[in-house]
């Protein structure tokens, strides 16, 4: 390959990586809030499924992507409410309730799809923005300034959530509630309220991530549209050590590795593709294994809070 071709390839992989990392960012940062407050929500995948369906349906039937996205986020909030009711109020085992939520979202989305759409339909999808001269810039224009609006929102979410978590009193409460809920309680923090808020926020973001897939990436809906991205998002939270910028790094790394892997598959190599597919996951696992950090994990993760019980 000529040097030019290689550069071109890298540019292409990076551009795509930026776009495809957006849904991971939404879902993983949402999950980060949930976990930071002490609730492990394994239902992300299901929420994304339903979010993806709702957004697509309204975008398709009413021809309004905006309406679709808004309703998807709303449905996400409802699922978050359900999750928090079951695991915060009823104190169910979070691993189980999350898996329940996943199956629920998956089943409902599939059923509704069959009933209301039924076949392969597509929509125009969210347009890429044209940012005047910025989009015209050589290299950077393509790489950074020709994406759809949700991509920018996803990347903006990183510094915003960092600020919220570390610089606002709500964020402080979230961090306290996830590690030492009793101490937070004795300082007047309503532990369960914060947990509800975080789980619901997290689910709304997961639904937004799902919506992104159907109305901004694939521009269609299918039963396997989400394809495990919700679970990857959960892994990214661990990968990112429960920090927004850590998650950003993980999402980018994963997307780039994935882009590279795809290119390798179609580049005509005879290497068994099943093995190359593993590559991005392997990378994540290796980095996970090599990183440790004090206090990264919220110590009260998955532990319901009961005031009258010492522990």
């Amino acid at each position: 390959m000529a040097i030019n071709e290689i550069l071109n390839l890298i540019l292409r992989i990076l551009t795509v990586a930026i776009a495809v990392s957006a849904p991971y960012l939404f879902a993983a940062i949402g999950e980060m809030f949930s976990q930071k407050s002490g609730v492990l929500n394994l239902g992300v995948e299901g929420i994304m499924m339903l979010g993806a369906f709702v957004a697509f349906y309204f975008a398709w039937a009413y021809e309004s992507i905006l309406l679709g996205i808004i309703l998807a986020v709303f449905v996400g909030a409802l699922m978050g409410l359900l999750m928090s009711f079951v695991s915060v109020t009823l104190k169910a085992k979070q691993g189980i309730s999350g898996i329940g939520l996943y199956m629920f979202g998956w089943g409902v989305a599939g059923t509704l799809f069959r009933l209301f759409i039924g076949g392969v339909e597509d929509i125009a999808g969210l347009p890429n923005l044209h940012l005047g001269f910025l989009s015209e810039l050589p290299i950077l224009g393509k790489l950074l300034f020709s994406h759809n609006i949700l991509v920018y929102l996803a990347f903006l979410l990183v510094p915003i959530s960092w600020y919220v978590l570390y610089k606002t009193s709500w964020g402080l409460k979230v961090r306290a509630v996830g590690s030492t809920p009793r101490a937070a309680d004795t300082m007047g923090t309503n532990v369960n309220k914060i947990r509800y808020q975080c789980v619901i926020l997290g689910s709304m973001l997961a639904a937004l991530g799902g919506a992104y897939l159907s109305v901004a990436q694939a521009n269609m809906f299918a039963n396997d549209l989400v394809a495990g991205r919700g679970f990857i998002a959960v892994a990214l939270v661990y990968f990112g050590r429960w920090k927004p910028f850590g998650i950003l790094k993980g999402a980018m790394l994963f997307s780039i590795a994935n882009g590279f892997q795809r290119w390798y598959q179609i580049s005509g190599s005879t290497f068994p593709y099943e093995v190359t597919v593993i590559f991005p996951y392997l990378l994540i696992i290796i980095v996970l294994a090599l990183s440790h950090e004090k206090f990264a994990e919220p110590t009260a993760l998955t532990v319901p809070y009961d005031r009258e019980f010492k522990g």
Partner: protein
Amino acid sequence: MDKIKSLEMVNITKKFPGVIANKDVHLKVESGEVLALLGENGAGKTTLMNILYGLYHPNSGRILINDQEVKIDSPKKALDLGIGMVHQHFMLVPSLTVTENVALGIKFKSKFSMDLDNVAQKIKLLSKKHDLNIDSSLLISDLSVGERQKVEIIKALYFNANILVLDEPTAALTPQETDDLIKWLRSVIKEGMGVIFISHKLNEVMNVSDRVEVLRNGKNVFSTPISKTNINQLARKMAGHDVELPTVERKNKFGNTIIELENVWAKNERGLDALRGVNLTIRKGEILGIAGVSGNGQKELAESITGLQKIYKGDIRFKGESIANKSVQSIIDKGMGYIPEDRLHMGTIPGFKVKENLILKDYLRSPFSKIFLLDRTYIKDYCKSTVDEYDVRCPNINTPTHALSGGNIQKLILSRELKREPDALVASYPIRGVDIAAVQYIHEKLLEARDNDMGILLITEELDELINLSDRIAVIYEDQILDVIDTAEADKSKLGLLMAGIKEGSR
């Protein structure tokens, strides 16, 4: 809300599954006085205070402030009313800084930012005024127990508490820190603070309090001004019978060396030397006391003998064989017992049942398990009789351990370790937080074990305990053993000097 002039709890009843923790309890404290709240382990002191602080909801009863009834249904309400509390097990978020821990309770004007600098500034002023000396930018996890307590006090002061509850504040403090705390208490009382002081150390109680309220089995049994009572009477009222500390017969015949440390070097978590060339021998049938201000290497000493701490130089021999850097399991199997300092997390698994914690070290052995199945009947009988024998107060042996009162968790650990009849025992602060009758009991048990030829390493800060129990006393100072003396030649002032690092006749 006005300043609290008087606070009264009336007819408080609180039931837990299997126990009535408080039954028609009343209590009154006024501003400018210290009320000591006394009672055996499990008498219901902490429960009563948790009710006052809005953490527990009583089944019945009322709380009056300045003769007006108030409803305290959450800690927030208590904070707003001016009630501050230093909990028996601290309520701090270890992963946050001191400032952030305080900020947790502040309602900031803006939702979108926190003025932490301002908070830090105010903390600085407070700690200056009250001589508390805390760097508010440090993480809680980097602070010592004494420092954490100061943070708890700062929290209470920050929110203008004028009734302060101190639940066993001195249990884990060094003698110096205790003196400072008491001095500080005196100064705030002068300014009109009302204090509820819980402690098992009766000389402290006599020293600081104005009035005493004694609970037994969740009921009021005795109430008096301090001037009309004495230590013996208080002990009797708490226990319901006479309490006398065991008198110790001095021994002069000991067995062979059982534990031997030779030039042991170890590093602490921060990578600094925590033991520097320690030499010690413990003989069969002997209690070797370790005197020293905590933080001078005691923890590392205990943990290197029990296998929890790696040593990088030297050797440790137990019954003649090297156990340095061997696995904890193999050292236990060899016959080592251990009462760790942190009873809730090192000594027990808090979420496990009492019976599970009791067999934690033995469940794999016969007769606790046959082939690979637990023998439930045997375990039940064994645990029931252990709990009875050692007077571990718990509703039943299936209660989760963290629901026990602090002192009873300590007794549970003691009973597990002693029942196993190890050849040697490392006991770190075995009477921390236990009531005076239990102190008597634990001391009797330790002496009995000694007389049965167990070799015991006793780490404690209580000089009385050291002098009473030990056959020899080794003084640890700055990670080294400064001196080993016969208890017959020891007195408090000499030990005090040694603990401060001053060795007579040297240098």
